C-alpha cells in the first residue's frame, strides 16, 4: 500500500514570496491533516479535512495560509506572503477517520530567507 506522498521535499524562498505544497493521502483515507513542525518541537495541527470539507482550521493563520481539498483526495497548502517564522517542515497526514491512526508523509522542508 502506497504511503502519503508530498511534494516538493525542499523549498527555499525569500520572505514575502508565495509557496504551495501538495499532498496525496493514502487511498481511501477520508481525513487529511496539515501540520507545521518547527525545529525542536512536535507537529502542530494547522488544518483538518474530512473528505473535501474543513472540520478544524482553528490554528491556521488565515491571513496568509490557505488550504483546499477540492475532490476529497489530494490537497494543497499555500502560504502567501511567507514570513521568516514560517520556516519549518510541513507534514501531511491521513487517516480513515477522525479518531483513527494518522500516517504521515515525508514532509516539505521550507526555508524562508
Amino acid at each position, binding site marked *: 500500500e502506497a504511503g*502519503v506522498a508530498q511534494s516538493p521535499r525542499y523549498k527555499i524562498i525569500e520572505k514575502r514570496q508565495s509557496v504551495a505544497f501538495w499532498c496525496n493521502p493514502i487511498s481511501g483515507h477520508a481525513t487529511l491533516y496539515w501540520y507545521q513542525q518547527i525545529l525542536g518541537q512536535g507537529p502542530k495541527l494547522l488544518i483538518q479535512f474530512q473528505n473535501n470539507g474543513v472540520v478544524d482550521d482553528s490554528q491556521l493563520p488565515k491571513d496568509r495560509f490557505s488550504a483546499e481539498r477540492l475532490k476529497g483526495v489530494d490537497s494543497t497548502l499555500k502560504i502567501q506572503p511567507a514570513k521568516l517564522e514560517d520556516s519549518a517542515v510541513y507534514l501531511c497526514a491521513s487517516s480513515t477517520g477522525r479518531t483513527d491512526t*494518522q500516517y504521515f508523509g515525508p514532509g516539505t522542508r521550507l526555508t524562508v530567507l
Partner: protein
Amino acid sequence: QQPVQSPQAVILREGEDAVINCSSSKALYSVHWYRQKHGEAPVFLMILLKGGEQKGHEKISASFNEKKQQSSLYLTASQLSYSGTYFCGLQNDYKLSFGAGTTVTVRA
C-alpha cells in the same frame, strides 16, 4: 493544550531500559505514540484507546492511565534502532496535540 513530556532527552547504552512520560491537564480519548528519526516523517508506534490499556511493539510498550490523564512509553532492552525522538499525541475533540518530544540516543 500541549501535553507535557519528560524527560526531554535520554542517553542509553544498548540493552538498557528507559521510560518516557506524557501528561495532560485535559481528559483524554486516546494516546498515540510516534517515533521520528532525524529528517524523516513521524512513524506510528501504537495507539491506546482505553484507560489502563497496555500495548506493545517489539520491546516497546506503553500504558495509559485515564484517571491520571497520563501515558508512559517503556523502552526495554534498547537497540541502536530505537534512537530518535518520541512524541506522544493526545486526542481530544478529534484533534491530536503533540508534546515537544523526548530525544532518545542509544549507544553501542
